[in-house]
């Protein structure tokens, strides 16, 4: 079948994207597969200024998953646009910039700058920064804050589609999704990591210097599927599903509960050719299942 998916003004040759923070700036994976064989590339979260991130250690393995507290180390949006973007095959594969800021103005400034970059296909807004002004609650944990950021980005994004990335660490993810939708989001991506921690009883220290980090990987797939399922029934926006995907089967599980596209995250660490392998295996699996089009399959979970 034709794997092509169109939504939010984007056209992807297949629904396999990569997840921000797990695929570097894309170039790191060029030796392991053909970047243009992917549906799209979401790069590491970008801030206005370069960021050093959190102290080490900042990754730890957990059962069927991992914790990270990288703290958004990145080279800053300017160096990304100047040094990395020109090397990416952006005319053949959509490159999506993941934005990170700690107030609405900063988000808007990032959006404005990126709106002018031809090589950027869309903006993905990471709203998991704590808003200090709002008492430290994360933007992504409060519908009003989420709406604020979405509107600010949307106002400056010009023609670029705005994807809002949601956190699962909330009482009701559909409330945040609705707020982002009402504020103008073109698509939603979910889920970001679950808040978690790990400790070492011998050193009596946390395994992450930052103490708390984000849980990702196969362990969280049930949570990701549930969130996508709930949001896809509550909000009329295309959804990009992620969380624990590590096979073509997992991709179809997400699409079956309502996702239009998916992102491969932690699984890229299991083997750097993972996203390429999954993209290559997808047609065969669809044929085996007798699926003829995305429309016939997407969201078609029979209850």
């Amino acid at each position, binding site marked *: 079948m034709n794997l092509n998916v169109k939504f939010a003004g984007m056209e992807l040759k297949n629904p396999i994207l990569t997840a921000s*923070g*797990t*695929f*570097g700036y894309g*170039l*790191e*994976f*060029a*030796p*392991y597969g053909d970047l243009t064989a992917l549906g799209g590339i979401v790069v*590491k979260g970008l801030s206005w200024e*370069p*960021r*050093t*991130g959190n*102290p*080490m*250690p*900042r*990754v730890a*393995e*957990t*059962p*069927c*998953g*991992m914790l*990270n507290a*990288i703290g958004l*180390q990145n*080279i800053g949006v300017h160096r990304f646009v100047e*040094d990395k973007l020109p090397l990416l095959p952006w005319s053949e594969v959509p490159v999506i910039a993941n934005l990170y800021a700690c107030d609405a103005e900063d988000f808007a400034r990032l959006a404005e700058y990126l709106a002018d970059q031809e090589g950027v296909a869309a903006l993905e807004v990471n709203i998991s920064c704590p808003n200090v002004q709002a008492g430290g609650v994360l933007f992504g944990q409060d519908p009003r804050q989420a709406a604020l950021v979405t509107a600010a980005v949307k106002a400056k994004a010009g023609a670029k589609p705005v994807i809002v990335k949601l956190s699962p660490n909330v009482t009701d993810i559909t409330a945040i999704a609705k707020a982002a939708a009402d504020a103008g989001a073109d698509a939603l991506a979910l889920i970001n990591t679950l808040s978690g921690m790990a400790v*070492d009883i*011998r*050193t009596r*220290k946390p*395994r992450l*210097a930052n103490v708390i980090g984000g849980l990702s*990987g*196969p*362990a969280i797939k049930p949570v990701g599927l549930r969130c996508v399922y709930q949001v896809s029934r509550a909000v009329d926006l295309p959804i990009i599903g992620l969380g624990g995907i*590590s096979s073509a089967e997992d991709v179809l599980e997400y699409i079956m509960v309502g996702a239009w596209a998916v992102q491969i995250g*932690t699984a*890229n*660490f*299991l*083997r*750097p*050719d993972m996203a390429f392998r999954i993209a290559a295996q997808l047609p065969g699996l669809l044929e085996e299942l007798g699926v003829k089009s995305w429309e016939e399959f997407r969201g078609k979970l029979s209850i």
Partner: protein
Amino acid sequence: MSDFILAEQADTAIPPTSGCIETTVVDLTRTDSAHDLENSLWLLDLQLPASFCEGKGWQPGQFVMIRPVSWSFEPLWARPFSICMAGNGILRIFFQVVGRGTRAMTKLEPGEQVVVWGPLGNAFSVEPDTPTLLLAGGIGLAPFIGYAWSHPQPDLLFLLLGHRPSVSGYPLHLLPESIARETARQKCEEDIACFVRDLESRIAEYARINGLILACGPHPFLRAVQTMAMQYRARAQLSLENRMACGIGACLGCVTNIAGQELPVKVCTQGPIFRAEDVKLEQAVIDRVKA
């Protein structure tokens, strides 16, 4: 000397690699004869991917990421290992059991499938005419086997191996015979003090003759080498063993702070080898990474 290293550390180019390959286990041999599995020593031979020696080939000090297919999701990550030797159809690594990943690797069977990517990272400098001191802390011996074979004048090399398990477990017979060597077991406080004295006098000596010092081993060992190298103004390179999730510069989980660099640098792509004077071996990291 360290131009090569510094170029890599500039975080621009993607180091060449043969990509991600499924290969098979040729042989797994335990080299020590202790009773315990913990801390045991092993040589693992994998079928060498044909692509591995093409192009730029590999250089001693580089490493590979290894993940047996049978691991499914547990452990999750691949594990990094120095390339001990690669040639004659064999990719050899020398490893010690320290946790669940290395413990699981002792169950590998010939013919079993293993995913490997590499060669990764930068390499130790080779200065053909310089007396070169190889400082190995235990399993840190691994890269020096390949290094010794690739060196144009092996008689300029001197290897000092500090070790805890019996020396018989270390495959010193794999080294070219012409290499001078000394081994020192660290069983008690006294041994350690003695080894540290030895280390210091060697480092001081190589500083004097403007020799090259290369070190590979656990963090505390590297710290000791670093301190002495700074003290005697020796030219030393340290191979770091930070925890790695991806090995290719994508996760930013392996970083270390380097003098003169604004952002923490990736040990997997910009290292693992750094000049002793550049790298900050933070105590906090050591406590946590090597319990």
